[in-house]
C-alpha cells in the first residue's frame, strides 16, 4: 500500500513541481512582442527570401517597426507596402518591382567542349573541368539549379538556357545565389530590353565560342541618347536608372542581342 502512495506522491510531486516551474518560467521569460510587429509580419509574403536586405520576414518586420523604409518587400509589392503603411500610419510608398534576369543567350548557340556525364546540376558541372561542358565559360550550363530553387515556378530551361518568366517572378532572388556562374541579376519589371550576355572576353574570342554573345563593339554605347549603356570588360551593361526604354540600342545592336527580357532570342526577335 505504501508503495503505491509513494509512487503517486513522487510522480504527482514531480508533475506539480515542473508545472509550477513552467508557469513561473513563462512569466519570467516572457518575450514581449510588439503588436505592430505581428501585424506587419502578417502582411509580408512570408517567403523569407531576403530581397529586402534583412535576414528574413521577421527581421524586416522588426526593422519596419523600428522605423525602416516600408517599401522593401519586393515579393509583396505595392499591396504589401500599402497595408504596412496603414499599420504604421505612414504615407504609402510605391515599390519598384524587380525581377530576375539570366544574362545569357548561349545554350544551343554554343557547343560542348566534352560530354559531361556527371550529376545533372549546374553546381556540379561548374566545378568540373574548365568550368563545365559549355564552350563559353561565362554562360548558362542549362541544368536548372535556378529552376529548382525557384518557389514560384518562374524559371524554365529553353534551348539550353534558363529563362525567367517575369510575370511569374516575384523578385525573391533565391536564384541569384543558386547560379554558380553568377549570371542572374535583378532588373526592373518595366525594363523593355536588356543585354543577355555576360562574356567578358574580347569580340573574336566570344565569336569563337558562341554565335549569340556580345562582342563589345560599343555600337549600343555610341548610339544611346541617354548614356545608359556602357561596354565594360568587353560586354555591354545597362544602367536602368538612366534607360528610358527608347529602344535605340536594341535597334542598332549588330548581334540583335539587346531584346525584351522574356522569351528566347528567336522568339524575342518577333
Amino acid at each position, binding site marked *: 500500500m505504501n*508503495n503505491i502512495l*509513494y*509512487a503517486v506522491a*513522487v*510522480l504527482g510531486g*514531480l508533475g506539480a513541481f*515542473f508545472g509550477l516551474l513552467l508557469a513561473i518560467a513563462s512569466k519570467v*521569460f516572457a*518575450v514581449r512582442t510588439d503588436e505592430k510587429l505581428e501585424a506587419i509580419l502578417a502582411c509580408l509574403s512570408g517567403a523569407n527570401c531576403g530581397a529586402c536586405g534583412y535576414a528574413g520576414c521577421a527581421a524586416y518586420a522588426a526593422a519596419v517597426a523600428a522605423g525602416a523604409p516600408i517599401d522593401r518587400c519586393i515579393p509583396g509589392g505595392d499591396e504589401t507596402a500599402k497595408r504596412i503603411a496603414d499599420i504604421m500610419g505612414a504615407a504609402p510608398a510605391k515599390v519598384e518591382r524587380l525581377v530576375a534576369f539570366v544574362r545569357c543567350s548561349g545554350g544551343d548557340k554554343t557547343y560542348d567542349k566534352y560530354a559531361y556525364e556527371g550529376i545533372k*546540376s549546374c553546381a556540379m558541372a561548374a566545378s568540373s573541368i574548365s568550368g563545365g561542358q559549355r564552350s563559353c565559360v561565362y554562360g548558362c550550363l542549362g541544368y536548372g539549379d535556378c529552376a529548382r530553387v525557384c518557389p514560384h515556378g518562374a524559371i524554365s530551361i529553353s534551348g539550353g538556357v534558363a529563362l525567367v518568366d517575369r510575370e511569374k517572378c516575384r523578385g525573391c532572388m533565391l536564384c541569384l545565389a543558386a547560379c554558380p556562374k553568377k549570371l542572374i541579376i535583378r532588373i526592373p519589371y518595366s525594363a523593355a530590353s536588356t543585354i543577355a550576355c555576360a562574356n567578358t572576353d574580347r569580340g573574336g574570342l566570344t565569336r569563337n565560342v558562341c554565335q549569340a554573345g556580345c562582342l563589345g563593339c560599343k555600337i549600343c554605347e555610341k548610339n544611346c541618347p541617354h548614356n545608359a549603356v556602357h561596354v565594360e570588360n568587353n560586354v555591354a551593361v545597362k544602367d536602368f536608372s538612366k534607360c528610358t526604354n527608347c529602344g535605340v540600342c536594341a535597334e542598332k545592336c549588330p548581334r540583335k542581342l539587346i531584346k525584351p527580357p522574356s522569351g528566347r532570342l528567336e522568339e524575342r526577335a518577333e
Partner: protein
Amino acid sequence: MSFSGILSIALGAILIENFIYIKFLGICPFMGVSKKMDTATGMGLAVIFVMGLASVFCWIVNRYLLVPLGLEYMQTVAYILVIAALVQFVEMFLQKSVPSLYQALGIYLPLITTNCAVLGVALLNTQYGYGFVESVVYGITGGVGFLIAIVLFASVRERLELTAEYPEAFEGFPIALISAGLVALAFMGFSGLKIS
C-alpha cells in the same frame, strides 16, 4: 573514471552502437528532417543538446528520488515527465536569453521533446549503471552519433534526388528507407571495434 573508459563509451555511442543505425532509436526525426543538409545539421545539434541535458537531469532524478524510495519501476514515466518539462523550460529560457541559439535550435526542440532516442539515452544510462560523468558523456556522444548519422543520410538523400534512377514506385519514403537500411548495414562494420 578513467580516460580510456570515457573514450570507449564515446566511441561506443558514436560508432559501434550508433543510436540510429544500430539501436534504431529516433528514426522519426531521422527520416523526417534528413531531406536537406542544413535542417539535418540543425536537428542533430538540437539532439546533442537535449540528450546531454536529459542525461544530467534523469540521472539526478533517478539517483536521489527514485532509487531511495524503491521506485525504479517508475523510471519510464518519470523520465518522460522530466524530459518534456525540461525541454519546454529550456526553450523558454533560450527564447528570452539567447535568441540567436533559439533561432538555430528553436524549431527543432519541440520536435524531440519525447523522442525515443532522448528517452532511450536516459533509460540506457540507468540500465548500464552509469555514474554521473559517464551518463553525461554517453548522452552527449549519443547525440553526436545522431548528428553524424543524420548528416550522412542527408547527403545520401540529396545525392539520390539528383542522380539515382529507380522505379517510380520507390519514389520518396521507400527509397529513403532502403538507403537507410544500406547505411545501417555499413555501420554494422564497426561492431568489432574495441578500445583496450
